[in-house]
């Protein structure tokens, strides 16, 4: 079709407004969830000992927990790791008599202990990593803010930023709600979501800017809607392929990458939605117009 169908654009505009309201509600809910639930911080941030072992499948979690608790004089969480006989043992404190040699600790239960992996992180390292992580998030946000305000006018950039904030807070709220472990890999995923969420918003913002310059007379809601429409099949294809591959990672990647792929999957999905909803509606609300993208005549004065 050569000409834009105005009534379909109108419908799209309505859909954008509706989804924006929905997105705002999600944001409020997300903040509430994070504030009330907090996070289940992983070993990377809290410090402690995590050991993954393979034992005889007949041994029960309660037995392991009792033996370990008795040895280390502290609560030891014993979590099943996917297959029978595979356990993740987590101590909160590094010292306080926790024996380093898990094989001898579990000796009363079985002789056949296979240690798959173990991590011991001192509390000060955890503290530092948490600080570094926060710093990374902040630094990335600031750099992106700088780049956006350099490339786009602030009204347009604010939409992309709100969308970005929306996506990150949503993923964080998911981890807060499910109490899935929040570790360094998840932090990396959140940072990657920062990048990808902007990806969609920028492609649409680029289009908005293009249409603004090309058709300065057009109503702003129609400009946004037509930009969304023009980029829609691109948005679907790219998000689709990325979701496919992240799903592949989720299915085949195994336990270590589970949290990462879930975070990425959610982030990319919500990022696609938000780039269409709040990403375009905020600049519209702030009344972005062709005025802001007029080419400034170069003055003759030196």
């Amino acid at each position, binding site marked *: 079709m050569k000409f834009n169908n105005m009534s379909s654009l109108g419908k799209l505009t309505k859909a954008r407004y509706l989804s924006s309201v929905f997105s705002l509600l999600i944001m409020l809910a997300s903040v509430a969830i994070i504030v009330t639930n907090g996070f289940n911080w992983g070993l990377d941030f809290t410090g402690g000992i995590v050991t993954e072992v393979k034992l005889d499948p007949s041994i029960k979690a309660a037995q392991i927990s009792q033996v370990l608790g008795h040895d280390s004089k502290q609560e030891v969480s014993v979590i099943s790791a996917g297959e029978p006989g595979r356990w993740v043992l987590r101590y909160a404190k590094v010292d306080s008599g926790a024996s380093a040699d898990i094989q001898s600790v579990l000796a009363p239960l079985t002789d056949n202990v296979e240690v798959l992996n173990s991590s011991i992180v001192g509390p000060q390292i955890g503290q530092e990593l948490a600080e570094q992580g926060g710093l990374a998030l902040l630094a990335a946000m600031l750099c992106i803010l700088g780049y956006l305000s350099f490339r786009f006018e602030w009204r347009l950039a604010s939409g992309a930023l709100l969308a970005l904030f929306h996506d990150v807070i949503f993923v964080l709220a998911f981890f807060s709600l499910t109490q899935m472990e929040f570790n360094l890999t998840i932090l990396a995923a959140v*940072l990657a979501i920062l990048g990808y969420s*902007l990806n969609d918003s920028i492609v649409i913002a*680029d289009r908005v800017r293009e249409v603004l310059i090309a058709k300065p007379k057009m109503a702003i809601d129609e400009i946004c809607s037509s930009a969304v429409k023009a980029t829609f099949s691109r948005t679907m294809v790219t998000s689709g392929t990325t979701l496919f591959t992240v799903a592949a990672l989720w299915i085949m990647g195994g336990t270590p990458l589970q949290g990462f792929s879930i975070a990425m999957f959610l982030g990319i999905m919500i990022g696609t939605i938000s780039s269409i909803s709040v990403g375009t509606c905020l600049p519209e609300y702030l009344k972005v117009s062709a005025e802001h993208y007029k080419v400034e005549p170069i003055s003759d004065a030196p």
Partner: protein
Amino acid sequence: MREQKQTTILNHYSAWKYVLLVVTITVMLFSALPTFFGEDAAVQIAPEAELNVNPLELHQLLISHGIDLKRIDQSNGQTTVILADNAQQTQLKTLLSQQVKDPSKLTLTLAPAAPNWLLSLGFNPIKLGLDLRGGVQFLLDVEIEPVYKLHNNAFIEAVRQFVRQDSLFGVSVKQQVDGRVQIQTADLTQRAAIREFINKQYPNWQISNAGDKSLQVALSEAEKLNIRDLTVKQNLQIMRSRIEQLGITEAVVQRQGEHRIRIELPGVQDPAAAKSVIGATASLAFYQVKQAGSVNAQTLKDEHGQAVYVARRPVLGGEHIVDARATLGEMGLPEVVIHLDREGGSMMSDFSRDNIGKPMATSYSEYSRDENGQIRQSTEVISVATIQSQLGDRFSITGAGNYAQAQELALLLRAGSMTAPVTIVEERTIGPSLGEENITNGFSALALGMGVTLLFMGLWYRRLGWVANVALMANMILIFGLMALIPGAVLTLPGIAGLVLTVGMAVDTNVLIFERIKDKLKEGRSFAHAIDRGFDSAFSTIVDANFTTMITAVVLYAIGNGPIQGFALTLGLGLLTSMFTGIFASRALINWAYGRNFSRNVKV
């Protein structure tokens, strides 16, 4: 003036661009290939180990013990036994240690499994992170405070001695809680005298007046930084030499941040053994050198294995050394200046007064635990020097060789004093089976993601889809090739996740271009013109969209730790290569295939 437009041909890339493209991808393909062959676990037997059987016998012996061998290589006296089953590496080393004179010269290593012609071109497999290979990682914290304290104590002692010598009554020297030294004097002349003494003897200390009759003295910030740097470097050096004893060729000992040391030991499964080596303590002692065959003498070996006869009891031990630094002496000759504490100074003074012109030996001992938990001591004479004059608490050793050797001696001397306690603050062990599981999982996810993406792009963009698919495959070749080429690049499990993400996102560049081409076709342009305009109009969007992800990749790399850096690396590299393949390579392909197609009703 002629217009630029007329001189350029639509959709035409000159021949050199095609040559560049083909050459780049071919080189990267060769660079990527060894990675797909993987690596085999191996044990290296150095010539000094003195293998007492010939390779043929060794082969039969190992097979009879159930070792699954791939081959045995021998070159320049060095024998490498390459395994077919990576899990048998430790077992193989134990078996081999019975067949050699010196088991400490056996090293665990990895041999690339790629054919020799490929390796001889200089290409090597990608280095795998510990989470994929299995192994132990330690993070050590070097405590600097005790070192400052030692410097402070020595300084206080020196000032007190000066006060006594010059009979300055009523002067008190006190250590303060904040690490500064408070000197309370009776009058201004005293203060001036002390000030002059400090300025002359301790130029690195900062003096400030506090009240009318007292001084506050502290190590200058620059000197503190210098001390910290030297201390960490010294510990780094000690750790390197200790890790060498473990016989792991790919071990990594690196400084991390201001006062941390990261040690990675691939292939090591037992952290306890590695810990005892890392936690070994060292000490240093000065001995009087005796005549060969003397009754009251013991023999120590020097670095060349030659015997040095020394007195049974040392003159003094390394615990008295406060500092040792290499400098260029008055004659321009390198020397090592040693700074002893007061007690050590008076002991050395007494000894040297009676032994001017005689040689003195310096020995370096290390105590470590062996596999059975027994403490083992190894002592080596690191220098023999002649005493020129009576020595005090500051003296220098010359004749240590060139400046680099003097620096090394200074390092060892400081190491012997072991003033900075090192604690293990992080320890991670990844079992070999888990490492292999991670590789299998990661790469099957990559294969699945890649397969689905290729299929989808082929079906969705029919005519242009194959271009995107070729670009995507070229992209993978480039990433793998670059990872293998970049020194220090390590593939980790999150790194594989980054690769999988790249597969999904790399097609974005092509999608953006193809959608633009579609738009232009809808506007009624011919295919060739649509291609030209499509690439042009998509370019700025592509750069904008990739740039923000690049920012996060850079931030992640800058502040992340090992595995996260691996993710940032593949993510960032993937962005760069996808721009190359998505814009440049696809354009080349499309120009070649459709560049002259001016028909108007094309469906893509």
